């Protein structure tokens, strides 16, 4: 299988501090790759490098190469890259000034994914169904997202990313602050979504990694210390840090 996302000797320094140090990885097509590691190991930074959000930080220095769909990230227009490689943040961030419907519809309209009203409506419904939110919000699409619970807001944010029909969906601890019921719904959605796209999931939860992941990368002090199919790494961890992470000690 070829790599959708490939990093070679990736080094990231933030304000003089090395956050990622010589990272090499190959994210496979239509898979869920889980990135685990203790806090501060560089997981979120890695996601932000992949879709070039790191550039918002004026103190960031990036060296090495990241190739997305065969093209160096710096050969992409950053806005176009982010339309194909979408990042969903840890904290749900629906736009409070827009309705539930418009939160999902706007990215599709602005990026030219859907143009006519019918197309947009169909796409919004498809995305909300994919994250199992449609039945819960279909009667209040014109309400602001503040009427939703934290878990519903996070699923709305994933739906908002899905309407772009991304090639790669980057999820930065999307279930960190939400209840188990919503967590399970998101996990179910992810398993279904990997048929259409490649998913990179940062999580602290080994159980979640085991439930949804195909491949796992363990980051520690900015380096990938262990990688491989989830089952293999979980059964035979080679590194002490991995063992501790899986036991949730770190």
């Amino acid at each position, binding site marked *: 299988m070829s790599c959708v996302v490939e990093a070679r000797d990736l080094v990231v320094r933030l304000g003089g501090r090395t956050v990622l140090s010589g990272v090499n990885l190959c994210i496979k097509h239509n898979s869920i790759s889980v990135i685990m590691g203790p806090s501060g190991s560089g997981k979120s930074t890695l996601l932000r490098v992949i*879709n070039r*959000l790191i550039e*918002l930080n*004026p103190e960031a220095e990036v060296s090495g190469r990241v190739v997305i769909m065969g093209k160096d990230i710096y050969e992409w227009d950053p*806005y*176009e890259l*982010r*339309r194909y490689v*979408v*990042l*969903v*943040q840890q*904290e749900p*961030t629906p*736009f*409070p*000034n*827009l309705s539930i419907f418009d939160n999902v519809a*706007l*990215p599709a309209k*602005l*990026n030219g994914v859907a143009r006519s009203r019918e197309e947009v409506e169909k796409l919004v419904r498809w995305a909300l169904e994919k994250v199992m939110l449609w039945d819960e919000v279909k009667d209040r699409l014109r309400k602001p997202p503040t009427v939703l619970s934290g878990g519903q807001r996070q699923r709305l*944010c994933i739906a*908002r*990313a899905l309407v*772009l029909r991304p090639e790669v969906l980057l999820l930065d601890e999307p279930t960190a602050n939400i209840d188990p019921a919503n967590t399970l719904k998101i996990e179910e959605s992810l398993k279904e979504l990997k048929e259409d796209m490649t998913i990179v999931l940062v999580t602290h939860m080994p159980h979640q990694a085991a439930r949804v992941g195909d491949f796992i990368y363990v980051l520690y002090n900015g380096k990938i210390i262990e990688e491989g199919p989830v089952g293999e790494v979980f059964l035979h961890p080679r590194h002490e840090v991995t063992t501790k992470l899986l036991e949730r000690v770190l």
Partner: protein
Amino acid sequence: MGRSTRKAINLLVIAVIVALGVLGLLPLIWLLYSTAVNGLPPLLEKGLSFITDLPPTPMSTDIGGIAPALVGTLISSSIATLLAVVSAVISSLFTREYMYSRISGFIEAVVRSFNGIPTIIVSMYVYTTVVLWMGEPNVVAASIALLIAVLPTAHYYLSSALRSVEERYREAALSLGFRRIHVLRYVYLGVARRQVASGILMTFIRAVGETAPLLFTMGFLTNSVFQGLNRPGNAISLLIFIYALSPYTNYHTVAWGAALLLLILVLIPVLLIEVLVKEARK
């Protein structure tokens, strides 16, 4: 210390705080009271014609109206507010998006310096550059002078509004492929729309209340309501200033009426801002 002593001290402190609060509000209440008492009679006497009639001649029995001043104030303040808001949106967006750049620091320093310039100097500057070039005081020159005077206010309020938008919304938008112009339209001006509206109203209030920038730039039109943007105009604050200094009692009466009208013109946006701020806090 016994319970009753503590209660007594508590009551005493509350009484002192309330008294100090009332003392602080007294000048404001006195100002509103005296303006209402002196300004209401001409408004009640003339009714709507106070805002549609031309100003009186000295010593005339009719107090006339302030139509040229009202029209001039609304036109020059609106032009200045519009231009100031457009410039401030651009400058505050730049300083928000590139907050660590040297240019942002330079813009902030320039705006701060402008804020400290006495507005009478602005009036003199516009007189020497615009009025002398155009041949006579006019509404355009007055609008430019007001623009320079209110630009720091517009920048301050709009940049505060844009800064109030949490970084996570900006990042979320950029993560979804939004271009910077879309971030401005849907995130900054969308999420902070009430704060932006408050900033626009504050800029308008500042423009309406300014007098000094108009002294050398507006002229003093009294014989018709409006003659054009390139011709002399009038303004309520200017009319109050000139009529209050005159020796004629009918002019003093008109000045009081105009002062009350100006207060109302300022208080309406202030009340609107209150509503907007309350809505934003919900």
